């Protein structure tokens, strides 16, 4: 029996079925917003604060609660698969300045991953098909959890599997381990028992795995949406109703590249996931749509390379963002974005970044993109 000890998480508002991200230490002008009726997004209109001084408030509150007491010191996370287990960049990045670390996808058993080549640069982005190479959940816990427990930054373990039982078993083994602050489910994996269809493309399958994992752990639970679906809204809603604490949007877009000789597809696995600035408009659209239909926090990911991207994602309803591919070009970017976001709030006279959230969302829900983008009857 493992000792059930929590180091990073604290008991959250579990009783409430509707959770909104609350910003702690807010000034009286920013009393945490209470539960709202469904279909109303987590949003705050821009509110101008009385300025503390000419330069704006001295301290900007960037803290955000994602659910079940998972408090991030700031809303800039590093994305799964782009930051390893948090140790690889060594002294180049001060991890304790990050809002959170989503570690490499972790499975029940070790996986050797896909044949090479595994990565290819594409216009404004890259394709990857690592194939979830990882040493398995037990080795991950043994090798890294002690290091994580010594960090201030919350570490969220990204979990993948090929059956509901797989996911549940991985999460059970992570539950109660000091140093693990939360779970992010990668549901863009084939469900082997159901003909290999991805969990993420079917509302029932996605809700099923979410509910099963929810029963297995009290850890804060994030579920990562796939963009490779016709209409993401029913899937997002089903996952939220199944008990997820937050949604991550989005995973990579499916794509291929061709080898230089044009004799075969370039990647060893043929298909890869597209990431980088090229996918930002797609990610923005999905965050925009999802934020309008769920009342749990949405964490945006997809092509963040500068502060403007962070502000864009906040404007369409995200409460936090993950930085991924851009880390490869500039490992210091995430920490710099934390500072730049605080500066941006200061110049706007804001004591918290929260008023930046949801400013571009419509007052009334508009038609979804699945109704057609250019042609409307």
């Amino acid at each position, binding site marked *: 029996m493992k000792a059930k000890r929590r180091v990073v998480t604290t008991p959250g508002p579990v009783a409430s079925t509707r959770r909104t991200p609350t910003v702690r230490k807010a000034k009286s002008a920013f009393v945490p917003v209470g539960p709202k009726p469904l279909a109303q997004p987590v949003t705050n209109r821009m509110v101008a604060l009385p300025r503390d001084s000419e330069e704006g408030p001295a301290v900007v509150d960037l803290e955000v609660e994602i659910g079940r007491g998972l408090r991030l010191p700031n809303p800039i996370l590093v994305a799964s698969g782009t930051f390893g287990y948090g140790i*690889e960049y060594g002294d180049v990045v001060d991890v304790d300045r990050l809002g959170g670390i989503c570690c490499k996808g972790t499975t029940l058993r070790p996986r050797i991953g896909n044949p090479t080549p*595994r990565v290819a640069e594409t216009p404004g982005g890259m394709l*990857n098909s690592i194939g979830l190479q990882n040493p398995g959940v037990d080795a991950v816990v043994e090798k890294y959890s002690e290091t994580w427990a010594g960090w201030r930054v919350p570490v969220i373990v990204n979990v993948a599997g090929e059956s509901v039982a797989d996911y549940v078993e991985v999460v059970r083994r992570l539950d109660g381990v000091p140093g693990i602050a939360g779970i992010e489910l990668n549901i863009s994996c084939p469900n082997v028992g159901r003909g290999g269809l991805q969990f993420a493309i079917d509302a029932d399958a996605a809700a099923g795995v979410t509910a099963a994992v929810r029963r297995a752990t009290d850890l804060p639970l994030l579920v990562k949406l796939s963009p490779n679906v016709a209409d993401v809204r029913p899937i997002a809603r089903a996952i939220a109703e199944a008990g997820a604490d937050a949604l991550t949007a989005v995973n990579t877009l499916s794509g291929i590249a061709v080898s230089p000789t044009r004799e075969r597809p370039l990647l060893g696995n043929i298909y890869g996931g597209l990431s980088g600035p090229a996918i930002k408009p797609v990610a923005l659209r999905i965050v925009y749509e999802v934020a309008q239909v769920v009342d749990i926090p949405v964490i945006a990911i997809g092509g963040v390379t500068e502060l403007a991207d962070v502000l864009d994602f906040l404007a369409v309803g995200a409460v936090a963002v993950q930085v991924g591919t*851009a880390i490869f070009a500039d490992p210091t970017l995430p920490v710099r974005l934390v500072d730049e976001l605080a500066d941006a709030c200061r110049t706007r006279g804001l004591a918290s970044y929260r008023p930046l959230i949801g400013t571009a969302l419509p007052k009334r829900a508009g038609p979804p993109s699945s109704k057609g983008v250019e042609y409307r009857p």
Partner: protein
Amino acid sequence: MRLVGAELLESREILPGQWLQSYHAPRLATGSRAGQFVHVRTGDLSGLVLRRPFSINTVDASSGTITIHFRTVGRGTEWFTHLRPGDPIDMLGPLGRPFEVDPRSQHLLLIAGGLGIAGVRFLADEAIRDGRQVTILFGAASARDVYPSSLLPDEVEYVVATDDGSMGHHGYVTELIPAYEAWADQAFACGPESMLRALARLAATRRGRLGVAKLGRKRGAGRPDAAGSTAARRKAFLQVSMEQRMGCAVGACLGCVVMGTSGTPLRVCREGPVFASDEIEWEGGWGR
């Protein structure tokens, strides 16, 4: 590993489509070893999202310069050729594990295929500095691609093979090996994977009869060093510098792996780029 700013000093096309650039980067020039590489950021982040890995070709600690040698293969490498002296770029390095030379080795055989010379060039300098003898066997398609001997130290014996016979030996560089393998204490190679595979096969068939391996039987014969350890690599007759499409270059993304004989993929950026040849599964690998 550090993120350092580097300034371009000189850039020239030494062979058709192949460039040699020197950069002022004192912290890389003093802290790097032969076989390591730098991961260099290109200019246009919106179009090119990945850094480019380059072997550290030579270093000059006294002037604080390093050189890189590359071929233009796409927009990224093309971008570097448009840099002008004085332009700043951003390098992450030194990265990866270096070549390990056994202290007893006196005769080093360096085998380079084409641009692979950039992977072993630094080792020639280090070896000569340490008083060793160096022979470089160089293979290229034809005379126009042969690395100029003027860019090599005078002390090096330089032997060329070309596929079309337009210079030196007519045939593959691997065909020159039998004449040198008895002389060599250790061999170090960089080049196309087919060349490295052929060399690894040769080394495997002669294991225990070559180089410092034959000297190393007296001490610690019954207790082999762990595969991949520095000690094991130092005793290996053949070390190879591998190439793979790379993402982060620090071991985080697992993009640049080669399959190891242990059945576990090895990261070129972290466990490599230099490996003992017997660490790598040369025949097939994933087998799925």
